């Protein structure tokens, strides 16, 4: 079984300040973990993914995430928010095994204030 919990449904930051979007997961097997972003009226786009290589993963647009097995966390960070980062972000887990199923978190809406 696998599940993912995004700890905040809405995060609001000022432009130029750091971003932290929190995600905890559970998985019966070694997981693959993803962050996807959805801009208004657009489809989902992959930001980054963890696949058991380096625990610190760098993605597009300056985002990165750190896999912490002991804390079962995969938090998404960015040092300095930009107005264009305003979007909904989804943390996603995929357990090892024969099934291709992804489990999505409920999403975190990021608002960036000028």
């Amino acid at each position, binding site marked *: 079984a696998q599940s993912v919990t995004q700890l905040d449904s809405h995060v609001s930051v000022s432009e130029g300040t750091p971003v932290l979007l929190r995600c905890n997961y559970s998985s019966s097997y070694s997981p*693959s973990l993803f962050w996807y972003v959805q801009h208004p009226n657009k*489809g*989902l786009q992959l930001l980054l*993914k963890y696949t058991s290589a380096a625990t610190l993963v760098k993605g597009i647009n300056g985002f990165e995430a750190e896999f912490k097995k002991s804390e079962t966390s995969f938090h998404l960070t960015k040092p300095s928010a930009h107005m264009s980062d305003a979007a909904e972000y989804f943390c996603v887990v995929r357990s*090892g095994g024969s099934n291709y199923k992804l489990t999505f978190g409920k999403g975190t809406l990021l608002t960036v204030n000028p």
Partner: protein
Amino acid sequence: DVKVTQSSRYLVKRTGEKVFLECVQDMDHENMFWYRQDPGLGLRLIYFSYDVKMKEKGDIPEGYSVSREKKERFSLILESASTNQTSMYLCASSSQTEWGQETQYFGPGTRLLVL
């Protein structure tokens, strides 16, 4: 670039109608998926297919069926639309060559309103 297209961006249908949502991908991906997205619930998997004519139920298959007659095309069918099927429907595809760590590529979505 991977391209996943969906036949309509917006659809309005009446209760009881049969509704077809079409999805086409151009990257020769083996896997295709249908999700629905509702506010506060994230994405929920309806059905997926890992090969032509193969399908598996996701988390919420009730009221839906699917068809995959060709590798590039995956159709979602609402046999008798109901108001609680008003939602955003997202199609995705992925390659089996990345087994265990597949990136899913999403279409732009179809916003369905059932009156």
